[in-house]
């Protein structure tokens, strides 16, 4: 028979023991230890390069992505999309991305939302261009930072992935992404985003969108390889990134980025 003091003591000990997460008593894996100690974690850091001058807004990339990554074709969400920007001589900006440009831009009218469309006369246009968007696989990803359960994480080669079996669907990562690349998968109801077709690039293939682009506007490469053509362009030419003010260090580089791009 234990007395009350003993009982309380043991209870506290028991609770304290239970509170230690299982991860803390994980047996050390020699390979993991080696990886953690080696100065260069990985010889690969995936980056993306978009040449906006080459993009014509055909939307083949969006179609290919939806098919490759099993995002329901008619759902109004997409891992990658193309935006159209039109600046008028009056200095007004019009931009749209109907259905993420899945079907390309089939009309010259700009989608203003709520069923309104704006037609802009050719002679009023100062400049117009297309900008493909996808996950920036940030070096400092805010989505990974805010995930309460660690279901979204960054791999050693820089790609941010989502564990569909562990995501609780709180939507905090969606809120934290300044680029609006995240959404809830209509079927799995977990956070979803572009992962540079991780299942393809890790097997030596190109991403679905790169492969589908008929004009070579999209390129993927390894920034740690100095001989990679993408690395050569990024390191020797003038390129820009989106929304650098958030400190996310995005890894999708753009050629011909305009200050009006949102």
């Amino acid at each position, binding site marked *: 028979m234990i007395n*009350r003091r003993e009982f309380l003591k043991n209870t506290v000990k028991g609770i304290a023991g239970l509170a230690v*997460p*299982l*991860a803390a008593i994980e047996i050390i894996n020699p390979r993991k230890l080696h990886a953690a100690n080696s100065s260069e974690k990985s010889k690969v850091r995936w980056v993306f390069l978009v040449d906006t001058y080459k993009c014509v807004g055909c939307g083949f990339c969006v179609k290919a992505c939806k098919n490759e990554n099993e995002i329901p074709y008619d*759902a*109004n*969400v*997409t891992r990658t*999309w193309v935006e159209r920007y039109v600046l008028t001589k009056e200095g007004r*900006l*019009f*931009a*749209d*991305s109907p*259905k*993420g440009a899945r079907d390309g831009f089939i009309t010259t009218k700009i989608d*203003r*939302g*709520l069923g309104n469309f704006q037609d802009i006369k050719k002679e009023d246009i100062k400049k117009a261009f297309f900008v493909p*968007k996808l996950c920036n696989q940030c070096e400092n990803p*805010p989505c*990974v*930072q*805010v*995930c*309460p*359960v*660690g*279901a979204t994480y960054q791999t050693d080669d820089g790609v941010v992935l989502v564990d569909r079996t*562990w*995501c*609780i*669907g*709180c*939507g*905090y990562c*969606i*809120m*934290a*992404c*300044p*680029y*609006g*690349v*995240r*959404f*809830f998968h*209509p079927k799995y*109801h*977990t956070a979803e985003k572009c992962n540079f077709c991780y299942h393809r690039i890790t097997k030596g293939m190109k991403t679905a969108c790169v492969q589908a682009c008929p004009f070579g506007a999209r390129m993927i490469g390894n920034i740690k390889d100095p001989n990679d053509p993408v690395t050569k362009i990024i390191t020797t030419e003038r390129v820009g990134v989106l929304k650098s*003010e*958030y*400190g996310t260090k995005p890894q999708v580089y753009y050629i011909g980025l305009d200050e009006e791009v*949102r």
Partner: protein
Amino acid sequence: MVHGELWTLKELFVYPNEYIYWSIQIVMYPFMTGLVAGAFVLSSLYHVFGIKELKDIARFALVFSFALLFAAPMPIVLHLQHPFRGINVMMTPHFTSAIAAFGIVFFTYGTIVASELWFLYRKHFVEVALPLKEKKDKSLTEWIKFIVFYTLTLGVYDISEESLKRDEKAIKILAGVGIPVACFLHGYAGFIFGSVKANALWMTPLMPVIFIMSAIVSGIALCLLTYIIVMELRKIKVKSHRKPWMPKLEDVKGVEMSVIRITAKYLLLFMVFAITLELLDLVFRGYTAVRHWDILRTVIYNKDFTNIFILQYTFGNLIPFIIFLIPGLTIRRAIIGLVLVIMGVFMMRWNVVIGGQAFSLTLSGYMEYIVPIIPHDWETFKEGMGGAVSIFVMPFVLFWVFAKIFPVFNLKESH
């Protein structure tokens, strides 16, 4: 259908994946935790700072805070796309996330409130359990009552003067520790929003403090309102059907005006803090006018004008302020004022959560949230009016149940 598409209207240039992902339940979440924290702070005003006038309402507020505590995590559960995985937050907490601390903070706070309640009601448990133990041939209800109260004593039957003194000390310590924890529980809800750098409206270090102040305001208001209603109902009940076991009419005094007046004073004090901080935030944004101010301005002064300036500031702050400041406060006027204050705090949460999603990340488009009122499936129920109302009603039902175990009135002797 994509989650969020059903209740989102998009205008001008909005990214294709953008919707109102954080809907009414995320408005309810800080609203409910705010009530928990506020109710606790109110009860601590008596237990820690010894403000004698609040003795009656302190006990009431503590039990109410406990009832609210159970309702506080419910909005999150209803909001999660995978509610059954919610426990993952406790299994693999990812501590760089503000949400990851929820389990720890919540249970710490829950433990404090539960322990304080136990010390406060220990004497009552013993007084109920012991006579029942002696009694032979108990009826079924007496058996249940006996088991519940006998368990609640946790095997401690010492209710001597000396041990009760020690209880009082323990209550004081727990209430004292509880204040910062309650503020942390809620301040951290503010941090969840304030730390989202992608959101131009949310990102401000003032957010946690603003949340704490308005939380205390809402908690005090709801406690006082419920207190008035319960007291008045009791009076009516005793008046209308006289039963021998009911307390005498003279004993049921109804609500004390002095309690209302003192509590209202603290309410006003915290309201001043809350409004000052909110206005400071607004003025600062307008004055610095950084890149996103253009779109914020259109949201604050045009799109959400009614929600912010009419419902929140005028009806939720200004009018109740005048109501409580005019001398000769009556019960009816107090009730109107309190309802308006609670509505005002709710609108503040609404304007933060929904208002923060009213504009696109493109800073050149808008989104409008259409609350699903009549549900046609589970999702539109839980993330619509039905879910929100259910969450709001829950603490009152729980309070009714808890009040049977922790009686809030007519205890022979109380701390």
